[in-house]
């Protein structure tokens, strides 16, 4: 099962929602569309499903041109951010609904609904109606409906965004397992970089209607093609600053500089943009090349097991992310350590030169 976009473009009036895009989604894989709100994720999903028609370009599915084919003919299933179920059907009927439309025999329906319900821990709830379920159970029901159909293409539009934090953690863990060995192509839209990393598979980074990069999720995270892809794939945002390479050192300002790594020896001496992920600037010196910097603490945030600290050096704001809870007095001066070994560098055109 492959899904291919050939120069697909979507415009509405004078606005361009999706710029001409070439994209080939892997055979039976788990694919992630990563981008902020309004970056075009939902439009992309609608184009894939056939809910929207591209303004120009073609959509190919399994070697067939399906551009403009209505969604009913495409064996697609979709799960939305809102929990969408038929309110006056019970859970069983909700899950069975796509099979009823396909006129599947009753015995077959019973068997398939039972197995999907088992998989999603819905077996004891089959007789309930959706309004008697918790948010997590409602979304499981919607997922079950998408799964039971054995669709070729499963589209998930931020399915976990409306769930409580811990429930999200739990379902996120289960999701990739659910689709393993089913042979369908899954596309999962999310605005959270951490979610993309946890889900694995392949990722397309989306920025203002353009796919900036597509490849294996870890690969994109570690070797972003350019500054924009790196920024889409960073939460909290990646720290960037102009640096100058002079011989064996990178110079940030008069007081802060650090040695080049082995892999950066070949770069010519000139101006670059350094990208430092927040977890490579920590209040405690890590192993390796820790470069001390001092700044004024602006904001501290705690996420339960991690601290995010915003601080200022000169005019520029930096973000540090570290494990554990590290309280700082707002407005105080504090020392942080840059992990020089993990800095990445972009050239003058913002293309990656060294990761």
């Amino acid at each position, binding site marked *: 099962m492959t899904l291919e976009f050939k120069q697909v473009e979507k415009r509405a009036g004078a606005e361009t929602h999706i710029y001409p895009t070439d994209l080939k989604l892997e055979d039976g894989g788990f694919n992630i569309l990563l981008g902020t709100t309004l970056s075009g994720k939902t439009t992309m999903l609608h184009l894939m499903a056939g809910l929207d028609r591209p303004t120009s370009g073609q959509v190919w599915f399994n070697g067939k041109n399906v551009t403009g*084919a209505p969604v009913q003919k495409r064996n697609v299933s979709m799960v939305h951010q809102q929990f969408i179920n038929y309110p006056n059907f019970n859970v069983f009927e909700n899950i069975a609904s796509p099979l009823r439309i396909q006129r599947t025999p009753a015995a077959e329906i019973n068997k398939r609904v039972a197995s999907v319900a088992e998989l999603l821990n819905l077996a004891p709830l089959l007789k309930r109606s959706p309004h008697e379920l918790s948010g997590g159970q409602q979304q499981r029901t919607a997922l079950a409906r998408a799964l039971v159909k054995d669709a070729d293409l499963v589209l998930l539009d931020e399915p976990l965004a409306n769930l409580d934090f811990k429930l999200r953690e739990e379902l996120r863990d289960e999701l990739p397992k659910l689709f393993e060995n089913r042979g369908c192509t899954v596309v999962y839209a999310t605005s959270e970089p951490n979610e993309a990393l946890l889900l694995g598979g392949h990722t397309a980074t989306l920025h203002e209607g353009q796919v900036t990069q597509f490849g294996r999720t870890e690969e994109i995270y570690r070797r972003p093609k350019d500054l924009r892809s790196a920024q889409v794939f960073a939460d909290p945002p990646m720290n960037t600053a102009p640096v100058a390479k002079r011989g064996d050192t990178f110079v940030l300002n008069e007081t802060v500089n650090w040695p080049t790594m082995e892999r950066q020896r070949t770069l010519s001496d000139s101006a670059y943009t350094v990208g430092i992920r927040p977890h490579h600037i920590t209040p405690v010196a890590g192993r390796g090349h820790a470069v001390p910097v001092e700044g004024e603490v602006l904001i501290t945030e705690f996420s339960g097991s991690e601290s995010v600290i915003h601080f200022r050096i000169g005019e520029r704001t930096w973000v540090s992310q570290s494990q554990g809870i590290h309280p700082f007095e707002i407005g105080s001066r504090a020392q942080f350590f840059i992990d020089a070994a993990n800095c990445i560098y972009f050239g003058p055109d913002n293309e990656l030169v060294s990761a």
Partner: protein
Amino acid sequence: MTVKLTNQKAWFLVAPVVVLVAFNAVIPLMTVVNYSVQESFGNNIFFWEGVKWFEEVLHSERFAASLMRQIFFTSVILLIEIPFGVAIALSMPRKGPWVSVCLVLMALPLLIPWNVVGAMWNIFSLPDIGLLGKALNSLGIGYDYTQEPISAWFTVILMDVWHWTSLVVLLAFAGLSSIPEAYYHAAKIDGASPWAIVRYIELPKMKRVLIIAFLLRFMDSFMIYTEPFVLTGGGPGNATTFLSIDLVKVALGQFDLGPAGAISLIYFLIILLTCWLFYTLTMKDEAQ
């Protein structure tokens, strides 16, 4: 290979609506337009008259008089029914068993057919045997709607208020029940007075349904026919001859099809224009 693009069969699903609208609206309207520009002396013989009937109607004192009566009637009942309906809705309970009791009581007048309403009030107001008529007269108020224009107007308006205020109440109540509880909590915490709650929360949140209520009541009252016809027959004299009653007199009483067609079209345009103006003006803020 290419998959077939769009399914054209869907057009058939629209066909019944097209047919229905044609028979229901377009064809009758065209017939009226047809009459309004021609003169007929029977036997299905017609002469082209252009805009003659329109000029005649617009210059006729009779049309002006019934139009003024109509405007006066509609204004009076709107001025009474809308505030009165809102007031009743505001004072109704929002929760508990009494809600359904109140709603059913409110809905009762709406369930009674127009001609029955007319007949009911006809009898109810008779000065010699009707409860209302007799009571008023025994209080020393000279009341006789069959003889006296002021009594007739009073009765017609009272009947309309009785019949239709409920509609405003139900719509306003629906608007009120859609206001989230948090608004009331917030207002209490902000120290808002009961009047401030009505002024800044309930009325603004009811705005949309009140516009609907206003439009419905405007259109219905402007076209009112059956109830005053049954009650007063347009009298005494021409005192309660509203536009529609007059129109029927012209069309069926005198069989002047041309002028009747012209009156119908002018009538239609007045309603259309007023509704459009009102709607665009009130919705101007919402559009942003």
